C-alpha cells in the first residue's frame, strides 16, 4: 500500500512539467516546425482583421442596416490603440515574473481580450441594429457595447501581434530573422485569405443565429490556435527571475531606442512606404469595376493577384536576405518596383486594358511584399536585444496607423474628386478614372519620398554592422 503511494508520487512528479506550457531549455536552433507553430498567432490576427474590416463591414451595412458612417467609426476604433503598441512592447521587455517569462503573459492576456471581444460582438451588433426587442432599448446600449467589442478585439490583436513578433525574434538568432519575418507575413496573408473564403461561405445564408455562430466560433478558434502556437515556446529564464532587470521608464527606453542607428528615419520610411502601398487597398476593386468595367469575379481575381504578388515578394525577400542582402536594399527595391507599377495602373485606365491592370497589380503586390519584409527585418536587426519588444511595438504602431490613415485618406480623396466631377469641373479625357488617378499618383509620390528618406539610412545601417555585436553583448551582460 505504502509502496504504491510512493510509486504514484514519483510518477506524477516526473510527468508534472510535461503538462505546463514552458520550454525547458532555450536551444540554439529552433526547428522550423516550432516556428511554424508559433506563426499560427498571425493566422488569428489575419482572421480578426478580415472579420472586422471585410465581413462585418458588409454584414453591418447590408444585413443589419447600420448607417455606413457609424460602421466606419466602429471599424476605426481599434486604430486608436495602435500607438499603444510601443508601450505594450516596452512593458513586455521589462516584465517582472517569477517564472522568468516576458512574452507569454502578454500573449495570454491579448488572446483573452480578443476572445472577449468576439464573444460579445454578435449580440452587441444585433442590439445595435435593433434586432428583436432591442428596437425599444435605449440607443446607448447598442453603441457602447459594439464599441467595447471592437475595442477589445483591436486591443487583443495589437497585443498578440506585437508581443508574438517579439517572441519570435527572441527565439531565433539574427541570421534566421529573415526566415521568421517571411513566415510571419505568409501566415498573416494565409490566415486572411483562408478566413475570407471561410466567412464568405459560412455567411452565404445569413441569419442572426448564423452570425452569432460564426463570430463566436472565431473566438474559440482564436483561443485554440493561440494556445497551440504558444505552448512550450518561451523558455523560462531563471537568471531574469532571480534578478529582475532594473525598471526603465518608457520615455527613457524610447530615447535610448531612437537616439541611435537612424531608428527615427527607419520609422519614417515605414510610415511613408506603408501609406504609399496601402492607400489603394480598398479602391482597387471599385477602380476595376467602375473604370475598366470588370465583373465582380474579375475584380476578386484582382485581389488574388495582389496577394500572389505579395507572396512572391516575401519569398524573394527571404531568399535574398538569407544570402546576405541588406534589409534596406530589399525594401528600396520594393519601393522601386512600386513606383512604375502605380504608373502602370494609371496607364491601364487610359488604355482601358484589364491585362495591364493585372500586371500592374501584381507589381504593386510584389513591391509591397519586398518593402514590408525588408523594413520589418531591418527593425528586428536594429533593435538591441533588450528592446526588441519596444522596437517591434514602434514598428507596429507606425505601420498600423499609417495604413489606416492612408486607406481613409484614399477613400476621402476619391469621394471628394468624384463629387467635384459630377459638378463638371473635372473629368475630361479620363472620365470616371479621374477620381482614382490622383490617388495612384499620390501613392507613387509617397513611395518616391520613402526612397529619398531611406537613402541616408543605408549608409548608417552599413556602418553599424561591426559595432552591433559588441553593443548587444554589453546589454546582455547588464541584464
Amino acid at each position, binding site marked *: 500500500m505504502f509502496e504504491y503511494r510512493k510509486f504514484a508520487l514519483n510518477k506524477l512528479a516526473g510527468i508534472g512539467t510535461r503538462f*505546463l506550457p514552458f520550454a525547458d531549455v532555450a536551444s540554439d536552433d529552433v526547428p522550423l516546425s516550432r516556428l511554424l507553430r508559433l506563426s499560427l498567432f498571425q493566422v488569428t490576427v489575419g482572421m480578426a482583421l478580415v472579420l472586422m474590416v471585410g465581413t462585418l463591414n458588409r454584414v453591418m451595412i447590408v444585413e443589419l442596416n447600420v448607417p455606413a458612417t457609424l460602421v466606419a467609426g466602429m471599424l476605426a476604433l481599434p486604430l486608436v490603440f495602435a500607438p499603444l503598441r510601443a508601450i505594450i512592447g516596452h512593458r513586455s521587455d521589462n516584465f517582472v515574473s517569477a*517564472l522568468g517569462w516576458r512574452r507569454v*503573459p502578454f500573449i*495570454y492576456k491579448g488572446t483573452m481580450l480578443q476572445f472577449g471581444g468576439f464573444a460579445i460582438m454578435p*449580440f452587441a451588433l444585433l*442590439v445595435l441594429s435593433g434586432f428583436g426587442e432591442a428596437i425599444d*432599448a435605449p440607443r446607448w446600449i447598442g453603441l457602447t457595447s459594439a464599441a*467595447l467589442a471592437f475595442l477589445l478585439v483591436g486591443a487583443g490583436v495589437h497585443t498578440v501581434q506585437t508581443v508574438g513578433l517579439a517572441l519570435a525574434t527572441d527565439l531565433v538568432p539574427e541570421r534566421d530573422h529573415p526566415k521568421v519575418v517571411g513566415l510571419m507575413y505568409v501566415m498573416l496573408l494565409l490566415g486572411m485569405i483562408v478566413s475570407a473564403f471561410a466567412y464568405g461561405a459560412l455567411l452565404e445564408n445569413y441569419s442572426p443565429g448564423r452570425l452569432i455562430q460564426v463570430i463566436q466560433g472565431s473566438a474559440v478558434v482564436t483561443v485554440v490556435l493561440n494556445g497551440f502556437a504558444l505552448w512550450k515556446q518561451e523558455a523560462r529564464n531563471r537568471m531574469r527571475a532571480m534578478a529582475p532587470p532594473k525598471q526603465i521608464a518608457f520615455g527613457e527606453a524610447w530615447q535610448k531606442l531612437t537616439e541611435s542607428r537612424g531608428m527615427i528615419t527607419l520609422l519614417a520610411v515605414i510610415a511613408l512606404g506603408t501609406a504609399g502601398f496601402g492607400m489603394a487597398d480598398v479602391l482597387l476593386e471599385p477602380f476595376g469595376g467602375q473604370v475598366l468595367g470588370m465583373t465582380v469575379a474579375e475584380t476578386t481575381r484582382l485581389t488574388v493577384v495582389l496577394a500572389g504578388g505579395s507572396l512572391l515578394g516575401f519569398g524573394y525577400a527571404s531568399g535574398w536576405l538569407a544570402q546576405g542582402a541588406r534589409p534596406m536594399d530589399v525594401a528600396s527595391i520594393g519601393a522601386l518596383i512600386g513606383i512604375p507599377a502605380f504608373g502602370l495602373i494609371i496607364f491601364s485606365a487610359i488604355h482601358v486594358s484589364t491585362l495591364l491592370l493585372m500586371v500592374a497589380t501584381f507589381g504593386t503586390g510584389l513591391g509591397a511584399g519586398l518593402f514590408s519584409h525588408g523594413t520589418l527585418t531591418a527593425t528586428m536587426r536594429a533593435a538591441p536585444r533588450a528592446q526588441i519588444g519596444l522596437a517591434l511595438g514602434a514598428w507596429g504602431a507606425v505601420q498600423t496607423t499609417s495604413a489606416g490613415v492612408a486607406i481613409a485618406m484614399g477613400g476621402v480623396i476619391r469621394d471628394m474628386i468624384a463629387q467635384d466631377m459630377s459638378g463638371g469641373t473635372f473629368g475630361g479625357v479620363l472620365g470616371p478614372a479621374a477620381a482614382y488617378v490622383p490617388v495612384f499618383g499620390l501613392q507613387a509620390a509617397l513611395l518616391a519620398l520613402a526612397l529619398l528618406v531611406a537613402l541616408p539610412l543605408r549608409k548608417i545601417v552599413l556602418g553599424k554592422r561591426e559595432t552591433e555585436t559588441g553593443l548587444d553583448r554589453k546589454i546582455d551582460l547588464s541584464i
Partner: protein
Amino acid sequence: MSDDPNKVWPTGLTLKEAEEVHSYLIDGTRVFGVIALIAHLLVAVSTPWLG
C-alpha cells in the same frame, strides 16, 4: 534543483512561480466572468427570456 525547499509538489515549481501561474488563472476567470455577464445582458435586451 531538487534541494530547493520552496519547491511544491507535484509540478516542481517554487511557491512564487506557482502563485504566478495561479494569478493568470484568476485573471482569466474574471475576464470570462465579466464577458459572460455582458453577453447575457445583451441577449436579454434583444430577446428577453425572463418575462
